[in-house]
């Protein structure tokens, strides 16, 4: 029996969506009982024949030993942006990557949608090895990975609605479908009234909402946030983070975000990786890392948050 709500409760009371492949099992193979043990495996039983199997549920993103070097140029030395990074992001995670500027978090985020190619190591997204995808396949994958940016990167020549329509045009959607979908999305982010405004007429928070609506247009399974709240005031930051959290819970979209503010991680993430000079120095559940920070950098990051996590 799997509860038909697409989430289950687990450790640290994070809500995690049940992998779609388990529903398929129940429907197609007449499975009666399924124990889904977060995060990696599922135990499945079938009535009558005492059928039993343990199935490994693959993480949504699996990065193994990824290194990224920028080769030396005439006057600059070789830069090692990422050094043997290994990490997994599960379906339903809000995964925070923190670090000071130059730590390599931006490169790591761009590795996930193939904007940066690793020098060595492997990246699996949704079960696919990114390295073997053709250009066309990679573009199709990217249409299913939303991305939002610190400086929004909206097209200022387009209205709010036309901006949200852009990814749908890229995906080759029909006109009436684009109209319907853009209305849906703009109502969701609370900007339907401003649909004919140009980005230059909007506040920072509103621009980021357009960015989010645009990122969600093609029903992504993953949302990448590149310092998405770093240019916003605290109040707007809270509302944008709230929106990201709602998207994660209601639509089951996995989120990977990079930030230099621990308060962002504290607010919405369930897992965190702390980076320094291209390496992950600490990785784990947010509560655990906050309660007992091991590395110097992590301690510095968590200091500012006060003692709210001792319990």
């Amino acid at each position, binding site marked *: 029996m799997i509860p038909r709500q697409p989430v289950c409760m687990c450790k640290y009371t994070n809500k995690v969506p049940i992998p779609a492949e388990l529903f398929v099992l129940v429907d197609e193979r007449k499975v009666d009982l399924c124990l889904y043990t977060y995060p990696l495996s599922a135990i499945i039983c079938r009535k009558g024949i005492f059928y039993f199997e343990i199935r490994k549920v693959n993480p949504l993103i699996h990065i193994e030993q990824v290194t990224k070097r920028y080769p030396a140029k005439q006057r600059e030395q070789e830069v090692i942006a990422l050094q043997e990074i290994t990490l997994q992001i599960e379906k339903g995670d809000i995964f925070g990557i923190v670090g000071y500027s130059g730590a390599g978090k931006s490169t790591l985020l761009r590795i996930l949608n193939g*904007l940066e190619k690793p020098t060595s190591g492997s990246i699996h997204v949704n079960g696919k090895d990114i390295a073997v995808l053709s250009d066309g396949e990679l573009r199709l994958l990217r249409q299913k990975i939303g*991305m939002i940016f610190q400086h929004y990167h909206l097209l200022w020549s387009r209205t709010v609605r036309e901006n949200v329509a852009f990814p749908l045009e*890229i995906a080759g959607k029909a006109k009436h479908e684009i109209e319907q979908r853009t209305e849906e999305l703009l109502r969701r982010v609370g900007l339907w009234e401003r649909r004919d405004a140009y980005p230059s007429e909007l506040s920072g928070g509103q621009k980021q909402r357009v960015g989010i609506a645009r990122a969600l247009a093609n029903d992504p399974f993953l949302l990448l946030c590149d310092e998405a709240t770093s240019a916003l005031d605290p109040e707007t930051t809270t509302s944008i983070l709230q929106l990201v959290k709602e998207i994660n819970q209601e639509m089951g979209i996995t989120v990977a975000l990079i930030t230099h503010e621990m308060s962002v991680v504290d607010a919405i993430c369930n897992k965190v990786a702390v980076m320094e000079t291209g390496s992950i120095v600490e990785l784990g559940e947010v509560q655990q890392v906050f309660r007992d920070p091991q590395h110097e950098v992590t301690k510095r990051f968590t200091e500012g948050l006060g003692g709210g996590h001792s319990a």
Partner: protein
Amino acid sequence: MLDQVDWVTVWQATLDTLQMVGISTLFTVLLGLPLGVLLVITNRGHLWENQVIHKSLAVVVNVFRGVPFIVLILLLFPLSTFLIGTSLGPTAATIPLTVAAAPFFARMVETALLEVDRGTLEAAHAMGANRFTIIRKVLLAESMPAMISGITVTCVSLIGYSAFAGIVGGGGLGDVALRVGFQSFNNEMLLVCSFILVAIVQVVQWIGDAISRKVDHR
């Protein structure tokens, strides 16, 4: 006052100038736009990096921009003869005008496209757009105001160039101003032709600015 002005000649010359400028502006844009786009996207780290094409194009553009226009016209008149059978008249003059102005416009296109925010390009990449879409819907669409200003400046330059071209056989206001005005000591004719040229430049600039403002939502 103005009784020495032959209005029929002036009218015909004005039409010739407008024809020369109109046609050569059109072909300059048709030729210079793809050239400018190619210059940008073949540059290092851009959409379609190709140093060989980039460097060759840059050399071609610089050669044509380096040669003084009056010399270029003289060199290119044989080309008009080859292409349309004559080197006389406003139609023949459009060929050297276009060849001279296209590299100039290509550089303006290049500047306009380089102003497009790199982040916006990255966002389009992240959305899974292909190169063609990025060129059309991001690069060109986002640089439209600068592009319109570029076309305006090019058109104004072409009005000036067309006066040169007129002198060596193209006809038009420049030709009339020189032959009928200056060389025949008919100052009124010289002034009227100059005034009309200035008026055309003003109108072109005014229209260009208006369109540029209308498409600018920054």
